[in-house]
């Protein structure tokens, strides 16, 4: 074996997978995992740990994998992370743990994400569950939202002995894990369901169909319903649109709508009732992970798919692995192009999109080169469906119904990074509701920090 290279991970063939929703990456088996684990140098002062937002003892669990003690490895990870099967799959490891790996200086870093995933999948297949804390402290905490931040915060608090109830607006818990990230990256019935069941087995209660701000308010939770503290992990689910002509035409969707129909409502399946229009040629506007997910979903539903992005490939915010997978499957990238208008037929349906070519100018405040329009370069793309994937912002429903809760000019809740404390007594927040749209693992890190903050607050009260 070449120690400079990762043990390759098995994947579904691009031609086959482009027509199904099965998971693309098949993961390691135990032999492959042990071989990859042997590449780890088990550094004393391991830099990878600092790259992980929840500071997993990476060499610690990898040592157990190498020796074949997978159950032990699972316990090591379990001390730090509530959702390893998810994070092993969707974390951008290339810019986190794996970026700091010493192995990566000369060759490829250790495949930490794939090893974490292997451990979590093995544990699920062998029925290993986390153990509930039998010592309850009699204090009640409400968690708003059952996405990665809420699940992590709830899990940690339950382990500390708190009586935790999660309130979820939709009919299924999981947040972006169930409505946003598609099956082919994150299987729902196996992976996501098991991770949520694990949190429930810690003693956490989940109430679905409860819209905080409408069904009840944070104020009522703290006064009438007897909760000692509240954690807000309501995410950033409000989609942005461009504000160009034709955007309300039939066949124009937010990526949130398209993905919710397909993932949560299973619209592509014949035995489910929610419909999704059939498309021949789709343009997805944007270049983030959500854009890749929407594009690859539309492709699997039988369409020719174009990603339209105003900067160049280097600036694509999506994970490198996802862009690579999208290209392998046949997604067409129309880079340095920006829509000006959606063309609509007499019945109100999309019939095309007028775009303009872009060039990269001087770097802007974010350090990225600013795209500028190339005069006279307009062209028309014949499409029948447009999916807007321009990012999301926090839903104002909670902040607008909670007096005394401070928000910033992006409508994000203001919370202390160290302990999640907000401007309102007893109310903590974390994840995308605070940072705006970010990553699953950062939300988990924030959920973890807030659990610690809530524990300190209630212990000193």
């Amino acid at each position, binding site marked *: 074996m070449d120690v400079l290279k990762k043990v390759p991970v098995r994947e579904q063939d691009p031609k086959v997978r482009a027509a199904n929703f099965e998971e693309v990456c098949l993961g390691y088996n135990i032999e492959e995992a042990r071989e990859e684990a042997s590449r780890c140098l088990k550094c004393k002062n391991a830099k990878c740990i600092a790259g992980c937002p929840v500071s997993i003892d990476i060499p610690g669990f990898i040592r157990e994998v190498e020796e074949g003690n997978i159950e032990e490895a699972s316990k090591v990870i379990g001390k730090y992370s509530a959702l390893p099967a998810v994070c092993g799959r969707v974390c951008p490891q290339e810019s986190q743990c794996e970026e700091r790996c010493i192995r990566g200086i000369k060759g490829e870093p250790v495949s930490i994400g794939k090893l974490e995933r292997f451990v979590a999948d093995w544990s699920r297949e062998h029925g290993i569950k986390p153990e509930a804390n039998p010592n309850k402290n009699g204090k009640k905490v409400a968690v708003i939202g059952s996405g990665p931040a809420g699940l992590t915060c709830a899990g940690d608090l339950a382990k500390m002995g708190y009586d935790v109830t999660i309130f979820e*607006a*939709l*009919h299924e818990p999981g947040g972006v894990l169930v409505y946003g990230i598609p099956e082919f990256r994150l299987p729902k019935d196996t992976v996501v369901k098991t991770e949520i069941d694990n949190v429930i087995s810690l003693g956490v209660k989940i109430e*679905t*169909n*409860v*819209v905080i701000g*409408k*069904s*009840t308010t944070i104020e009522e939770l703290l006064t009438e319903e007897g909760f000692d503290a509240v954690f807000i992990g309501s995410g950033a*689910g*409000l*989609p942005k*649109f461009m*504000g160009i002509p034709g*955007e*309300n035409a*039939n*066949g124009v*969707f*937010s990526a*949130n*709508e398209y993905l*919710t*129909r397909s993932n949560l*409502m*299973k619209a592509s399946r*014949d*035995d*489910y*009732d*929610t*419909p*999704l*229009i059939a498309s021949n040629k789709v343009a997805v506007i944007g270049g983030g992970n959500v854009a890749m997910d929407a594009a690859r979903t539309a492709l699997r539903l039988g369409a020719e798919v174009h990603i339209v992005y105003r900067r160049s490939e280097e600036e694509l915010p999506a994970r490198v692995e996802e862009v690579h997978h999208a290209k392998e499957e046949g997604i067409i990238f129309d880079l340095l192009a920006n829509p000006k208008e959606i063309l609509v037929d007499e*019945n*109100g349906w999309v019939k095309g999109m007028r775009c303009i070519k872009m060039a990269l100018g001087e770097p802007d405040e974010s350090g990225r080169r600013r795209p500028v329009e190339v005069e006279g370069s307009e062209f028309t793309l014949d499409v029948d469906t447009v999916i807007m994937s321009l990012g999301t912002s926090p*839903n104002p*429903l909670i902040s607008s119904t909670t007096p005394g809760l401070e928000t910033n000019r992006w409508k994000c809740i203001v919370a202390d990074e160290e302990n999640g404390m907000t401007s309102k007594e007893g109310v903590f927040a974390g994840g995308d509701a605070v940072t705006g749209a970010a990553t699953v693992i950062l939300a988990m890190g924030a959920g973890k920090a807030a659990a610690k903050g809530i524990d300190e607050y209630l212990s000193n009260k």
Partner: protein
Amino acid sequence: MFKILKKEYLADNIILMDIEAPKVAKSCYPGQFVIVKTDEKGERIPLTICDYDREAGSVTIVFQTLGSSTQKMAAYNEGDSFRDFSGPLGCKSELCTESREELQKKKILFVAGGVGTAPVYPQVKWMKENGYDVDCVIGARNKDLIILEDAMKEYAKNVYVATDDGSYGFKGNVNDKIKDLVQNEGKEYNLVIAIGPVIMMKFVSLLTKELGIPTIVSMNPIMVDGTGMCGACRLTVGGEVKFACVDGPEFDGHLVNFDESIKRQQMYKSEEGRAILKQREGDTHKNGGCGCGGDE
């Protein structure tokens, strides 16, 4: 699970149900809606709240069997349960938030079209219970489609029924009746609240604009989540894009782009048609057809 406490046919294909949903019943107001999902595989269907009983913990919904999902709902009976019942969603009617002083100045005509009579009812009831008299026009194609007339009469000062074919009450559509009230009977109104099919709300708004009467309509676009996370329900009001589920569902009828909304409502028409066919014909729908395999 949310138990069906009562099921009653108001007309041939219009059904009223009382649902056990204490959390919704405790916090809902006229003008708001709920989302119902029958079972694991069902879709999320928005329905305006028609009545509620805070003490009994129940919420009343009224729906018309139009597509496959409402037909599926109609097959449920008393004692059965819906898997999901989420709400209250959307903003409460402005009437519930205005001061007494403002409300006293209002001379309101409610205009209810067909199954839209159901969401008008709690608003009329709310006004009466707070001490205000209002008038109401109920319109439908024919006598058999008029619903909740007696219930409405309990709370509205005057209830006028209009049928297109003249089989009951005034002969003509709701607009004909509004004109009759204002021009022939000398009635004075300074607010119209119209709820019914979009096409009706459009034409009522056109008429009241001519008559100079401010008008509120309750929009019913396609929805998925109903909490503001997808924009399926977006519409244009006064040139701005709004999400009906969080910004509405009630809007100024003189500012709504109705034509755009009507087109957006048609988006899944063929998909809905396919779903109904599938339900009626069962397995024969897929495997049968004309044999050309075009629908595979």
